[in-house]
Every structure is written in C-alpha cells, then in structure tokens.
C-alpha cells in the first residue's frame, strides 16, 4: 500500500460488477429515460391529433413521398453507422472514418430535409401559433431534429478525435455507444413517421 510499489494496474478501473462498462450502461439508462421523454411528447401529439380548430390541417400539408425519402435517408445512416463500428472493431480506421462520415452526412441531409419541410409548411401558413397541429408537430419533430443534431456533433467529434490520434481501435466501444444513441434516434423517427405521417387523418 505504499506509494508506487503496489500492483501496476488498478483492476477495479476495468472491472465492473455486470461486465458491462459504465459508459454503456449509462447510455442504456439514458435511452430508457429518453423513451419516456419522447413517449410524453408523442402522447400529447396523439391526444391533440385532429383537434385543430383551424387549418392548415395535416392532410392538406403533409408530403408523404417527400418525407418517406428523408426517412429512408435516416434509416440508411443507421446502416452506415453499423459499417463504421465494424470498421473500428476490425482495426480499419480508414473504413471507420469513411462510414462514420457517411453517417453524419446522411444525418445532416435528413436535417436539411427537415429544414426545407418546416419552411415549406411555414409558407403554407402553419406555424407554432397557428393551431394545435402546428404546436404539436413542430415541437415533437423539432425535438427529434435536435437529437439528430446532437448526434451529428458527436459523430464529427469522434471523426476529429480519430484524425488527431485520440481514438484507436481499442476505443471501439465509444463508437458503439454513440451508435446506440444514433440507432435509438432512428427508431424514434420510425414511430413518429408512422404516427404523424402514415396513419390517415
């Protein structure tokens, strides 16, 4: 127990009771909490569904083909995320960076699409204040978009870290955890897309 002479590595620094790392467990617990966050937002959307007193109404304004494409873009980004993780897990940092870059780019494309969609709706007279649809739609999809945006910043940080040599294949789990978040945000979009766009009003 004297200075420096003790065993080299602290075993408890690497060992956890469950064998799952602290960081990964933190992410799972956070996602459970985030489920309740989106659950509450979606619940309020569903309660107010079809209860706007004046237009524009969703059926007049939602462009399902357009949003289907942007949904597909977001889903593709999940595939790119899987490939990026596969890259770093197998020590192929080039493949990791390319696919993680693709993930972030697809995410950005989705956000750009959302920006365009929001502007389009706004020109059709739909705003936060206009009616219950505007209120609930913009807040729900806006919070989802914020999640995507935070995810993009996270992915770009990981790419930059790997470029500056601060992320190696030994840190593959950090990418895996970012991936958990990214896939979760995708799954939430599937739910929102189904409930907000696909089910007829």
């Amino acid at each position, binding site marked *: 127990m004297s200075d420096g002479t003790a065993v080299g590595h*602290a075993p*408890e620094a690497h060992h956890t009771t469950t064998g799952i790392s*602290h960081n990964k467990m933190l992410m799972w617990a956070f996602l459970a909490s985030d489920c309740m966050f989106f659950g509450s937002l979606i619940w309020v959307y569903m309660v107010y569904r079809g209860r706007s007193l004046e237009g524009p109404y969703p059926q007049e304004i939602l462009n399902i083909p357009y949003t289907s494409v942007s949904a597909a873009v977001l889903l593709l980004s999940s595939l790119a995320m899987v490939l990026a993780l596969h890259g770093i897990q197998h020590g192929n940092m080039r493949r990791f960076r390319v696919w993680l870059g693709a993930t972030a780019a697809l995410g950005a494309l989705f956000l750009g699409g959302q920006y365009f969609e929001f502007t389009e709706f706004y020109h059709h007279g739909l705003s*936060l204040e206009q009616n219950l649809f505007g209120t609930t739609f913009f807040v729900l999809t806006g919070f989802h978009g914020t999640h995507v945006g935070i995810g993009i910043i996270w992915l770009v*940080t990981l790419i930059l870290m790997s470029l500056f040599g601060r992320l190696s294949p030994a840190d593959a789990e950090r990418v895996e955890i970012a991936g958990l978040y990214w896939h979760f945000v995708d799954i939430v979009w599937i739910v929102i897309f189904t409930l907000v766009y696909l089910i007829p009003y």
Partner: protein
Amino acid sequence: MVESALKLERARYERSALVEWLTTVDHKKIGILYFWTSLAFLLIGGLLALLIRTQLIVPENTFLGPEAYNEVFTMHGTIMIFLVVMPLNAAFFNFLVPLMIGARDVAFPRLNAFSYWAFLFGSLLLLSSFLFGAAPDGGWFGYANLTSSRLYSPGLNIDFWVMGLQVLGVATLASALNFFVTIVNMRAPGMSLMRMPVFVWMTLVTAVLILLAFPSLTVGLVMIMFDRYFGTNFFNPAAGGDPVIWQHLFWIFGHPEVYILILPPMGMISEILPTFSRKPLFGYTFVVFAGMVIAFLSFGVWAHHMFAVGLGPVPNAVFATTTMLIAIPTGVKIFNWLGTLWGGAIEMKTALLFAASFIAMFTIGGISGVMHASVPVDYWQTDSYFVVAHFHYVLFGGSLLAIMAAIYYWFPKMFGRMLDERLGKLHFWLTLIGFNLTFFPMHFLGVDGMPRRVFTYSADMGWDLWNLVASIGAYLLGASTLLLFVNMLTTLRKPADAPADPWDGRTLEWAIPSPPPAHNFDVVPVVRGRDAFWIEKYGAEEVVGPAPERHGAESGHNPHNSGSGNEVGHGSSAGHGQAAHIHLPPPSWFPLTTAAGLTLMGAGMVVHATESLASLGFPIVGLGIAMVVVSLLGWTFEPIHEESHA
C-alpha cells in the same frame, strides 16, 4: 520579509481550500455540499412555513396579503420538495452509497459534481425571484393555463419557476443516471443484489423512478415554456388545447415523485432500526420487494390527484383501486420494521427515537392517504386542510423524521464527531410534539371544510382554535429545528474523535475511519453476506454464502477469504481484499462551468420575459449554450487518470 512570504503562502493555501471544494469530484465532499446546502434551504422553507402559520394564526389577519400568501405557499412547497428533501436524500446517496457497496467513488465523479452545481445554481435561480419581488405564485403543481398563459400570470414569477425547475430537473436526471450505474456496476466482490443494504436498494429504485418519471415533468415544463414564450397552444382552450393535459403530465411525474421523496428515507430507517435493535432487518426480502412494488404501482395512480377534475366514473374507480393497492406493500414494510424492533435489544439513542417515530407518524399519514383514495371521500376532502395534514404526515412525519434519524446516525461518519445526545433528545421531543400540534388539528379543520391555499378565513367559521394551536405548534417546530443546528454547529467545534464504528453498525461504512479517507477503502472489501461488516465482526449466525472468488489474477492471493468467517475487520480495513494502486480522479472545473452555462440559459430566458431587458435575453441564452459546449469539450478531453494515491 519572511513573514509576508508566510502570509502569502497561507493565502495561497486558503484559496486552494476554496478551489478544492469548487472543483472536488469526491463523492463524500459532494455529499457534504449537498448536506449543508439543503439544510440552508430547509431554514428558508421553514421560515416561509412560519409566515403561513403567522398569517393564519387569527381569522381575517392582514399580516400577508393574498398575493404574498400565494408566493409564500408556492415557494414553501417547491423549496421543501426540490431544494430540501430530494437533495438531503442525495446528500446521503452521495456520502453513503459508494461506502456501503465497497466502492471508491461513484461511476462518474465529474457528472456527480455537475449534478451538485446544477442543483445549487438552479436553486439560486429559483430563489433569486425573491430579489425581484416576483417569486413563483402558481402552486408547486403550477396548473395550466394559469401558468401557461401570460394573460393570467403576467409577471416573471412563473418564468423563474419554469426555468429553475428545468435546471433542477437536469441535475436530478444526471444524478439518477450516476447512481443507477454505480449501484448496478460498482459493487465490491460478493455484494450480490440481495446482499445490498436496504438503503442502497431504495437508492436504486429511486434512481429508476427518477429516470422514468422526470421526463414527463420536463415535457410539461417545456410546453408551458413554449406557450409562454413562443405562442404555442398546448394549454390554450381558445385553440382547442386542454389544460387537463398538464395535470396528467404533472401527476405522472408527481406521484412517482412522492416515492422519490419517501423511499430513500425508508431505506435509512431500514439501516437504523436493525443497528439499535441489534437484530438483522426482519424480512429483508419483503422490504426490498415491497419497495419495488410501490415504485411500480406509483406509475398507475396519478389520476387520484385528479378525482375532482371529472375524468368519469371508470377512470376514477380504476385509479382508486390501484391507489388502495399501494397500501399493501407499504403495510408490509411497516410490519417488517415493527418485527425488527420486536424482541430487539433496543438502545434509545436519538437516531432510534426519530426512526421509531417515523413508523408511527408515517402510518397516520398512510391511513389518511387510503381514506382519500376513495373517490367520494376525496370529493369531500380534496383541496381542504385534510390533504395538507395527510401529506405533511408522510413528508414531514415520514421523510424528514427519517432524515433527522439519518443525520444523528451518520453525522459521526460524515464529520468525525458525535452529536450531543441530550440536546438531540430534546430536539426529538420538541419536534414530535411541535409536529403533531401543527398538523393533527389540520385534520379537524379539513373535515370541517377549511380550504387550502386561501390566505385567510372568516371569524364565524369556528376555525380559530385549531388554527391557533397549529400556529403555536409551528413555532415550536421552528424552535426545535434551531436546536438541531445548535447541536451540529457546537459539535463541529469539538475535536474529531468519533470512533470508526460508534453504534456497532452492520454495514461497510462503519468499517473505515470517521470521517473516511479520500480513497475510502485501503483494500477493496470482500462481502460474505448481508450486513457485511457485522459478519466480519461477529461471524455469521445464519446462512452466509461462500466467499466469492476474486476476479482475474488476484484470486488465490487472499488467504483470509477461506477462513471460517470469524476474523474481525482490523484497523481501517473492511473485510479482506487485495491492495492495489489506487487511482483517484483529479479535480475539475468543468462540472461547475457546465452547470453555470446551463443556468445561464435559464436565466437568459427569464431576462427575455422582462419588459426593459428583453433584447438581452437570447444573447444570454446563447452565451450559456456556448459555455456548456466549451465546457463539455473541455470535459471530454480532460485527462482523468493522473493523480494517484496509496
């Protein structure tokens, strides 16, 4: 020359002591910060309670006007729930949980520091409303659309409330994530789930409740914020919005919140009663599972706060049933505590007196709770003083009495000094008498129809006597609380001579010195059963599991583990683990700056709602965001394994 150099040296040293507290990531120091901060807020919340009781001491009193009265009762409730009971629980989570599970810190020490600073700054944001004469005045429940429309709440009052609570919500979520991971992932070898102290169990259950219940409050607050700031229609009936939605969101959070306030205190007395009965907790498994059942059911009872809203007979009947069901696991716990005391070698210490009075007082509050679980009875009692009596019996008679017990029990561990027992017993009796004088008469006032939240009453209602009694009780209660502070402050001036294990305790925190060293355990303890330290001291009378294998290369290096289980933990080491190089995370400024940035965002929103400075609002929000982003980047790239101690 030499002297001035010495002075300079001293100044440097003193400043670094301050810096040490500002940058600490040690769970024990953070626990102590939570402890004193929330006790200071207890004085503020208590003072507000005395203002309420002074206003009501005689009929038609003019001590406080109706506006001031609204602010006072709103802030009293908000402070006591979010700034006193929750953070006092957090003080004990922080100080005790790592010690009880044999860990050196929490899973995320810097996140832990962030939780504290966000709690402190969020609280100060909320309290700063007093300086602007705009304290929140919409009740702690903030019912929409009174709170969501600037038409009905034009001042900054509700803005302070919405922003302060959002900052506090982030602090709470971060803390819950941290303790969830810590308890699941950082237990000492052999500390299986069913060997954990009940306090650790209740912390775990509380963390899960926070993770699942707080988002609903966050979403509700975000909607109120959007309605107030951006003209949305969430709770605007003119556009088809429904204010009752807020009530659902609030109470889906609000009822689990009640158990967030009471489960940790239940855990505390489940540690204290066995120690002073010199018996293991009766029915450990039942107590643990009852806690989980309570937590599960708590998500299915929220609408009992809304019986009078008019949800219809079917929802009301369903929620009445689920609410009554909660009495079953709660009753199980009460009988287990009684079973623990039964036949025990009871030591009448102050901590035990508070813990035992918890059982009695909480039972009274529990029974009145079952009464208004019945819908017709609730129609009669709702919004009356009967409800005020009920929840003070569970939150003061329950939570706070148990926390008082915890203060007397763990103060020696936290500060190395024993609180004075004679002063403690005086404090206890005055508290018990003052509490019952204050709140028992409110049952009578309530069934007689005296409404809550109304600043005065007419002289011909016949409510004078019991209001007078309640007010006298409240002054007594205030005086008794001062005795606690006198006791603590005089004790802190005495030499730190508390033994490591003053009460003959059962759990691991008593195995190490009082106060514990920075690294907690010289060697990571090995746990061989429930009441781990008791087994080390006295051997096991009942069935104790085999000593666990140490993981990895260390197994086999530990001859003590194969022993019969009779060795006494010697000196400062608990159990017998291996010595290893101990890494302690270095201090960090980033938790504090992140929390400050977050609070700046909230403050900017309040500024935006002012008339004269509105244009400054969003720039301040932007500054806050920038501060959070820069701090988080610094946080991410800060090395965390530099310092090492032995």
